[in-house]
C-alpha cells in the first residue's frame, strides 16, 4: 500500500504547482478541442473561398484566411489532431521499445546487459535527424512511417533511465526475498519491477511528447513531414512563413498555438518530475 501513498503524495504536490496546473489546463482544453474539431470548426478543413483569398481576422473568419480562402481557425483545429496524435503515438512507440529494453537489460544483467547497452551506445552516436530525413526520402512521406521513425529514435534515453532504475530496485531486499521464494520472472516484473519504474516512465513520457512534436513540426516545416491536404501545425507554420510579408496572421497564430503547447507540456513534465522525485522535495 506504500505505492498508493507515493502517488497521492505526488498528486498533492502536483496540484500545488501552479505552472504545472496551468499546463494541464491548457493541454486538456487542447485535447478536447482536437477531439471536437469536426463539430466545432466553423468550416470544413478543406473548404475554400477562392474569391475571398487571404483576409485578415474578421467576425466571419476569427483568425483570418489563407491565400486559398481557407479558414485558419478550422485548419488549426484540424492540425492539432495531427500534431497531438504524432506526439502521443510516437511517444507510445518510444515507450514500448525503451521500457522493454531497459527492464530486460537491467533485470538480467551480465552479458545480456553489456550487449544491449553497447547497442544503445552505438545507436546514440548516430545522427538521427539526418537518418529520419533519409527514411522519409527513401520510403516516401508516410505519416505512419513518421510515427515509427520518430518513436524509434526517442526510445534510447528511455531505455537508459529505466535500466538504471531497475538496477537499483533489483538489489533491494524485498526483490531478493521474492527471488528466494522462487517467483517467476513474469510475476517479478508485474508485481515488483514494473510498478516501481512507473514514476520515471510517466515523467519521461511527458517530457518526450514535446520533443516529438517539435521533430514533426521541424520535418513538416522543411516539407518532409505531413503532406497536403493533411495539415499539422508544422505545415501551417511553413505556409505562414512563406506568406508572412503580406499576411502576418498566417504565421503568428499557428506559431503562438504551437509555442504555448510546448510550454504547457514542458511545465507539466517538470512539475511531474518534481512531484515524483523525493530528492527534489526539500528544495
Amino acid at each position: 500500500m506504500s505505492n498508493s501513498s507515493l502517488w497521492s503524495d505526488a498528486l498533492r504536490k502536483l496540484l500545488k504547482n501552479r505552472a504545472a496546473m496551468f499546463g494541464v489546463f491548457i493541454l486538456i482544453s487542447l485535447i478536447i478541442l482536437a477531439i471536437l474539431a469536426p463539430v466545432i470548426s466553423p468550416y470544413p478543413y478543406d473548404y475554400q473561398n477562392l474569391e475571398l483569398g487571404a483576409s485578415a481576422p474578421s467576425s466571419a473568419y476569427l483568425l483570418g484566411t489563407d491565400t486559398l480562402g481557407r479558414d485558419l481557425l478550422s485548419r488549426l483545429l484540424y492540425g492539432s489532431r495531427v500534431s497531438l496524435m504524432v506526439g502521443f503515438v510516437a511517444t507510445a512507440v518510444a515507450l514500448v521499445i525503451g521500457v522493454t529494453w531497459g527492464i530486460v537489460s537491467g533485470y538480467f544483467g551480465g552479458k545480456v546487459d553489456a550487449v544491449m547497452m553497447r547497442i544503445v551506445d552505438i545507436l546514440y552516436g548516430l545522427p538521427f535527424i539526418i537518418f529520419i530525413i533519409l527514411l522519409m526520402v527513401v520510403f516516401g512521406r508516410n505519416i505512419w512511417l513518421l510515427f515509427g521513425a520518430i518513436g524509434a529514435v526517442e526510445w534510447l534515453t528511455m531505455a537508459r533511465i529505466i535500466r538504471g532504475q531497475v538496477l537499483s530496485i533489483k538489489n533491494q531486499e524485498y526483490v531478493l526475498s521474492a527471488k528466494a521464494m522462487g517467483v517467476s520472472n513474469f510475476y517479478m516484473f508485474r508485481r515488483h519491477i514494473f510498478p516501481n519504474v512507473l514514476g520515471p516512465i510517466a515523467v519521461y513520457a511527458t517530457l518526450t511528447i514535446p520533443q516529438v512534436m517539435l521533430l514533426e513540426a521541424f520535418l513538416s516545416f522543411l516539407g518532409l513531414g505531413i503532406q497536403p491536404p493533411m495539415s499539422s501545425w508544422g505545415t501551417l507554420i511553413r505556409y505562414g512563413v512563406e506568406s508572412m510579408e503580406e499576411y502576418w496572421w498566417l504565421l503568428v497564430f499557428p506559431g503562438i498555438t504551437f509555442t504555448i503547447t510546448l510550454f504547457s507540456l514542458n511545465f507539466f513534465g517538470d512539475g511531474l518530475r518534481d512531484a515524483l522525485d523525493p530528492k527534489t522535495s526539500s528544495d
Partner: protein
Amino acid sequence: MIGIILRRILIAIPVLIVVASITFFLTRLAPGGPFDAEKKLPQEVIDNLNEVYNLNAPIYEQFYDYFSNVLVGDFGPSFRYPGRTVTEMISTGLPVTFELAFYAILFALLIGLLAGTIAALKRNTFLDYFPMAIAMLGICVPTFLLGPFLVLIFGIYLELLPVSGWDTLPGDKILPSITLGAAYAAYIARLGRGGMIEILGQDFIRTARAKGLTETKVVINHALQGGILPVVSFLGPAIAGLLAGSFVVETIFQIPGLGKFYVEAAFNRDYTMILGTTIFFSAMIIFFNLVSDILVLILNPRARDS
C-alpha cells in the same frame, strides 16, 4: 586516461561504418531511379546513365567502389546537377555552414555564460528570474519560428537588417547567427547556472573568499573552470542539433550552405548527394562528440576513474 580515449575512438569507428553502410543500402533500395523524369527516357540513354553512375555492377561491387573512392575524398557525381560532384558541393557549402555555426556558438557562449553566471551569483533575485524566464522561452520557441519572427520584426517592420542572403549585404549574418544560436544560449545559461551554483557552494570557494580575493577573481579563477563543465559536455551533442538547425536557418535565410544543399537534395531525391552528405555529417557529429568527451576528461579529473 589514454585508455578511455582510445576506447571512445574504437566505439566511434563501428558507428561510422554502420551509418555509412545503412545509408548506402537505403539509397540503393529507394524505389524509383534517380532519372525518373516526367518524360520517359529512351532505353539507351538510361543504359548510358546507369553505366556512367556505375549502377549496372552487382551491389557489392558498387559498395566496394563507392567506399574506396570515399576514402580518398571522392563522393561521386551528383544525380541532379550533371557535371557537378558531391565533393565539390560539400566543399563550397561547408565553409559557409561552419562560419554560421561558429557565430551561432560564439553568440550562445557569450550570452549563455554571462546570463548563467550572473543568475547563479544573484540567485533568487530579478537578475536570476528574468534571464531564466527568457531562457525557458528560448528553449521552447523552435528555430523555425524564431527565425521568421525575427525577420518579421527586424527585417520587415523595422527594416533594420537584411532578411536573407549571406555575405551580400552588410549585417546579413546577424539574424541567422542569432536564430541558430538562441536555443543554445538558453541551454548554456541554464546549464551554466546549475554548474556555478553547485561549485559556488563548495569549500574551496569559501576558502578563496576567506583569503580575501575579490568576487571577480573568485568567479573567474576558481569557479568558472568547474562551473562550465556541464556546458562543455553539452557542446559536443549540441553540434548535431546545430546541424539540424542549419537546415532550417539556411532554408529561411537563403544561405548557400551545406544545410540548404542537404534539404534540397532530400527534396530532389538526389541520392548521391544525400549519401555523401549523410556520411560526411555523421563523421562530423561523431568527431565532435569525441572531442567534447575528451575535453570533459581533461577538465574533470573525477570523470577519468569511471
